[in-house]
Each structure stands twice: as C-alpha cells, then as structure tokens.
C-alpha cells in the first residue's frame, strides 16, 4: 500500500513561512529543524521509470542519500532507501519488492541525475498523546540552476504525508490547506516543472525510431532527415559510451551506426554514390571498432544466465571467467575510447554533420533524388522482403550457420527499412509486418549469439589455460559450452516455425498490399 501524500502548490510570490506560522498558532503541529539539501531526480538515459509512471528522488542529507521511489502523478511513496551513495544500477536498490518491480523496467540501464535542484524544507508534524507522529507536513522552496549558471526559483510546494492508520489527522490538515487557503495540487510533477524551468522536458531522448515523413517528400530530403536523426542518436550516446556508464549507450551508438550504413546502402542514386562509398567505409570502420566491447558486454550481461544454466555445485567455479571477461573488457574499452578520441573520428563527425546540414539541390544530379519517398520506400522494402523470403526458403536442417547469419543481416535491413519509412504507411499494418519479422529476428539473433558464444568460450578457455586457470573452471566452462550447444540446437529447430509464420499467406498478402505497388 503506497504512502498517501498530497501536494499543493503555493501561489508564486507567497512565503511558506506565513503558512507555517499560522499552522503552528492554530494547531498542535510541532516544528522540526529546517533542512537544506540537494534533490536529484533519477531516471535512466531513456526515461524508463518515467515511461512506467515512476520516479526516484534522491535527497542528499548530511552525507547520505534518502532515495524515495514515488508514483509520478500522485507522488505517493512506494519505498525508501537510505544509503551512502546514490543508487546506480537496479542491484543497488533494496532487494524484494522495489527490485522485483524495477528490474524488468530498468534492466541493465544506469540511473542518471536527470535534474537537480536545491531545496529548503520546513518540517512540521503532528503527534498524538504517545508522542507518535500521525501526520507530516513539508513546506519546500526550490531553486534550480540553468545551463548558463543562472539560478531560477520554482513555485514552493507543500507535501502532506499520511502515516498509515492515522487518516483523520491527514484529512484534517489536507482540508485546512485545500478549503481554508484554497490551495490546489500542482499541474506537473516537481521533476517535470524543474526540467521545464531550464527548457528541458522528460523523454528528451528515446532510442525508439519515431520520424514522421510526408508522402510528398523527396527521397533525398527524407534520407537526410533519417540520417540526421541517427547522427543525433550517435552523438547523444557518445559520452555514455566513452564513460561506459552502462552497456546500452554503446548498444544505441552501434545501432545508429548500423542504421546509417543500411540507409546509405539503400541510397544509391539518391545521394552521390562516391559519398555513399566513402561514408560507408568510415562508418564500417567505426562499427568494427565498437565490436569487441559489445561482444564482451553481451557475455557479461548474460553471465548470470550462464551461472544458472550450470548445476548448483559448479556455479561458483565459473567466477574466474567473469573476472577474465571483465579484464578483457577493460582493455577493449580503453581501445574504443582511443578511437572515439581519434582525429579520424572527429573528422568523420565534422564532415558528416556539415553534409547533413546542407540544403538539398533543387536540380540534383542523382536521378532518384527527387523521386517521391514512398516510391523509393515501396521498392526498397519490397526488394529486401523478397530476398529474405527467397533465402529463408532455401534453409534446411543442414544449411551451414553462415547462411543463417546472412539471412539475419537481410532481416535486420528489412526491419530498419520498415522503421525508417513506417510513417508513410498505416500504423496498424506496419505494426503487423514487424511482429512476425521481430520473432524471426529474435530466433536468428539467438542462434547467432549462441553459435558465436560457443566458439568464443572455446577460444577463451585456451587463453585462460595459458594463465594457469584452475581445472575446475575449465570443466565448468566445458559444461557451459555443452549447455549452450543444446540451446543452440533448440533455437535452430524453432527456426522453421518462425520462418513459416513470417512467410505465411496472410503475411505475404500484407506485404504485397503495402509495398508491391510500384514494383
């Protein structure tokens, strides 16, 4: 049961002290020591808590942090953590309910300070005959610093906090504020008000693809819009990738590179071909430089799964593998940072930014540049869709893994193309095209991951043997490889069903109706 809390916003120029004095005179409320502290609003980079209607608020009090888990709109308190450090990962939150609910929301993402304000809190409480607190009132005044270092004030707020089982006092105080002083709840959550004050808003980053293209748009214009969007994602994730804040920064950074490359590959005769070749090379170089860290991130993210795949008696024997992976990751991360600080990368960004900012030519040289975007989208999606179907149909139980890998890449291209141009088509039907494609991709992705993991683990065990690793660790790794091979076989068997679903008559009809028109 969440802790009931009411919030009221005070009029712009009013002083909380006036209300405090009046309350103390008229009621038996007791005043506690005022507090001054920093309040930090925590969420993941991509606002996962906000999306689920939650918020984590960390108050820095006397060298410790009191972090409250609140509902976004009602500001009810769902849980409290007092700790020396601000929680970063879900594992830093209290085990039990808070972790159980927030783990699937946050997954591997780190909590970041999305906004910070300075708070002066005047605290009142009402006690009963046993000196037991039965209701709390906090009068809060805030200042926030904008990006230029200018301090701005926010409207003060009052929070009335119920103590479970003592509703009468809560209702009486709430009525006093609401009816006697005609105070109203604020329109926005405090974090939203704080962000707005400095010109920001929640969800100002999302890794999801949401562009709205217009049917009448020229192909070169649409391609530039999408490429600009991908470049923005890449730049936004660069800092987190360099700092290794969490593994999703690099993931999103890599997805932006891949999407850029896929679109460049599909932009022949829309953008200058020499330019496509050059930037395809440069982004391929960048993508390759990020590969090792991502592979190691995947192993480390899967590590708990590896452990639990083993019999309980040998789970701990796998520990040296984790240490080995972490050490390897450290080296790979440092190499990646070198690349991200290199002149080549800086030049790539500078030139690419300038190119994307250029206005489009009225009379372009490339013969498809001025074509209507939908015509291009239809043709490109249909072509890749046909390739996926053709290649998928030739895959049997003995087909080499490399061909499934190639099919996976075609599926990825198809997925990106549908996402790039999805806004040109009816939303509901686009969602349907993606459903079975996503399932097929998941299957092919799992197969590829497991295949690579088996090979890499075998390679790692050779490397670890050189550093005199204990035999029991090698044995545990052997058992793990067997387990992964079993899982790989199951996934491979499941491919037939996943592909049949994708290649179903209903799905073919859907793809035909949407994309075949201009073929």
């Amino acid at each position, binding site marked *: *049961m969440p*802790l009931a809390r009411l919030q009221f916003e005070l009029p712009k120029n009013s002083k909380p002290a006036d209300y405090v004095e009046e309350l103390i005179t008229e009621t038996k409320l007791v005043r506690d020591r005022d507090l001054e502290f920093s309040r930090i609003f925590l969420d993941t980079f991509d606002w996962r808590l906000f999306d689920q209607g939650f918020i984590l608020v960390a108050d820095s009090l006397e060298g410790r942090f*009191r972090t409250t888990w609140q509902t976004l709109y009602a500001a009810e308190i769902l*849980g*409290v*953590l*007092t*700790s020396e450090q601000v929680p970063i990962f879900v594992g830093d*939150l*209290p*085990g*039990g*309910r*808070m972790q159980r609910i927030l783990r699937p929301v946050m997954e591997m993402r780190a909590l970041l300070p999305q906004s910070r304000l300075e708070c002066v809190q005047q605290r009142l409480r009402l006690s009963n005959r*046993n*000196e*037991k*607190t039965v209701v709390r009132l906090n009068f809060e005044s805030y200042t926030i610093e904008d990006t230029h270092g200018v301090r701005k004030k926010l409207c003060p707020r009052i929070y009335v906090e*119920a*103590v*479970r*089982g*003592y509703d009468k006092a809560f209702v009486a105080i709430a009525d006093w504020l609401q009816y006697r002083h005609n105070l109203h709840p604020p329109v926005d959550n405090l974090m939203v008000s704080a962000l707005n004050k400095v010109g920001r808003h929640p969800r100002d980053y999302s890794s999801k693809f949401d562009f709205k293209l217009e049917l009448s748009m020229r192909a070169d214009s649409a391609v530039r819009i999408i490429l600009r969007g991908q470049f923005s994602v890449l730049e936004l994730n660069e800092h987190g990738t360099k700092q290794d804040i969490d593994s999703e920064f690099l993931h999103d950074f890599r997805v932006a590179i891949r999407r850029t490359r896929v679109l460049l590959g599909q932009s022949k005769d829309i953008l200058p071909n020499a330019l496509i070749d050059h930037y395809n090379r440069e982004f391929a170089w960048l993508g390759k430089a990020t590969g090792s860290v991502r592979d190691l991130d995947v192993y480390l993210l899967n590590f708990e799964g590896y452990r639990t795949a083993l019999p309980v008696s040998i789970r701990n024997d796998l520990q040296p593998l984790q240490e080995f992976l972490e050490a390897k990751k450290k080296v790979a991360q440092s190499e990646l940072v070198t690349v991200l600080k290199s002149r080549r990368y800086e030049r790539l960004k500078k030139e690419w930014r300038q190119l994307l900012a250029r206005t489009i030519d009225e009379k372009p040289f490339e013969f498809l540049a001025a074509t209507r975007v939908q015509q291009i989208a239809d043709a490109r999606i249909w072509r890749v869709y046909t390739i996926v179907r053709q290649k998928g149909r030739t895959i049997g139980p003995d087909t080499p893994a490399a061909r499934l890998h190639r099919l996976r890449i075609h599926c990825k291209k198809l997925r990106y193309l549908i996402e790039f141009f999805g806004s040109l088509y009816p939303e509901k039907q686009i969602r349907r095209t993606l459903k079975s494609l996503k399932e097929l991709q998941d299957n092919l992705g799992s197969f590829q991951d497991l295949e690579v993991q088996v090979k890499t683990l075998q390679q790692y065990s050779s490397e670890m043997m050189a550093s005199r690793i204990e035999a029991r660790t090698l044995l545990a790794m052997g058992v793990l490889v067997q387990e992964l091979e079993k899982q790989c076989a199951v996934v491979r068997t499941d491919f037939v069903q996943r592909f049949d679903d994708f290649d179903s008559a209903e799905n073919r009809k859907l793809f035909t109706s949407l994309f075949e028109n201009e073929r």
Partner: protein
Amino acid sequence: MKTLALYSIKGGVGKTAAAVNLAYLAASDGAKTLVWDMDPQGSSSFYFRIKARVRGGGKGLIGRKTELDQLIKGTDFDNLDLLPSDFSFRNLDLYLDNSKKPIRQISKILKPFVEEYDYVFLDCPPNISLLSESVFGAANALISPIIPTTLSIRTLMQLEKYIEGHTGCRAVLLPFFSMIDVRRKLHREVVEHLREDFPYLLKAQIPYASDIEQMGLHRAPVLHFAAHSRAANAFQQLWNELKVCLVDL
C-alpha cells in the same frame, strides 16, 4: 515475502528487543517490513509508541471479520509498519481452536500482504500452543533467542524435538545467544558448551546491555537512539548473518 518468527518457549529472553531492532534494520535496508505484535503484553507496540488495541480484537482477526489492512499502523520509521497487539490476543489459542484448519490461519491472514511486504516479523508470546503451531506453519524461519543458562539447553532441545515431530512446520530454526553477560563465568561456559552441541547456533550474540533496557524510556529501537552502541552493533551483526541464512529460504 519472508516471514520471520521471533519465538521462544521461555519468556524474558529478548524476543521483542530482537523483533523491534531486526525489523528496524530490515526497513533501513529499504525492505518493506511489518512487525506483528502477537504478544498480549504489547511490548513491540509500546516501543513503537502505538496503542496496543485492535478493532474487533483477536476474534475479528482470526475470523477475518476485520480487514487486516485497516489495522496496520505506520511507525515513525521509513518502510516499517506494525500490526499492534491487543489484550484479547491472550485468547488467540481459543479463537484458533474454534476456526477451520487452525494451523494454516496465520499463513492465510498474511497471504494478502505477500506482494506488499518483503519481511514480516512475528513477535510471538512465550508459550508452546496452537498459536505456536500456526506460527510454525506460516514462518520461513524461527529466530529463537537463547539466554546462556543451563535451562536454555533444555528449552532449545524441547523446541528442536517439537519442530522435528511437527509435519506442518516448514520453518528453519535459527537460534542465537541473547542477554549475554561476558563477565559471568557461567554465561561463558554455557555459550562454549552449547556452541559445541548446537553448531547451527548463529555466531552473532546480543549482550546484556543497558542500552537495550533503555528502549522502554526512548520508546524506539536501540539502533535509532544509540546507533553506535555495543548492542546496536550486535543487532547489526545478527541481521547481517540472518540475511545470508535467509537467501535460500
């Protein structure tokens, strides 16, 4: 949700002090915690400054005529709630005896709170009765304070035997030494002797300390008003040890 019963056949061994301080520590870790003061003396309720009275009494509670949700009170501490005691709890055995499947009653009463609380501490009255059986059926662990006297050996053995012969008990017995006065030779000898015979006794031991007695004056857990005291430190060690034991329960 993990249900931990502070239980002993003997009275005056430090059950309530342990329940209050361990629950405070669990809540300080950020876990949503409930203390159910089952003892009609209402000491836990007193320590949390909450009136020992329950609307509908024990009869309403066991018969589930009163919604438990309506009876829970928030303490002055984050994450920590209390289901207060009531003088009618002296008759809980009678009410249980009149109910269907009495041994499952406590478990059933707590069922709606499985999602809400991470820990429930049952501060049990000192006896061995139908209520104890119902507690055994609901608890994941029986945390039992043992004072270092010769009689304690007998009590611990009695409890062990009782649990072994009790098919409805799913709880693990986790005894610890309580109210130890290391200046007393007898205490030192009994501790040494019992540790040999009962190797599963928890390592942490709670001293006989005036800080614990002062809980009555402060009406708060030791950890709140004397956070750096020897007693507070001992409860912290006990909680750390218990958390490890509770992982697999």
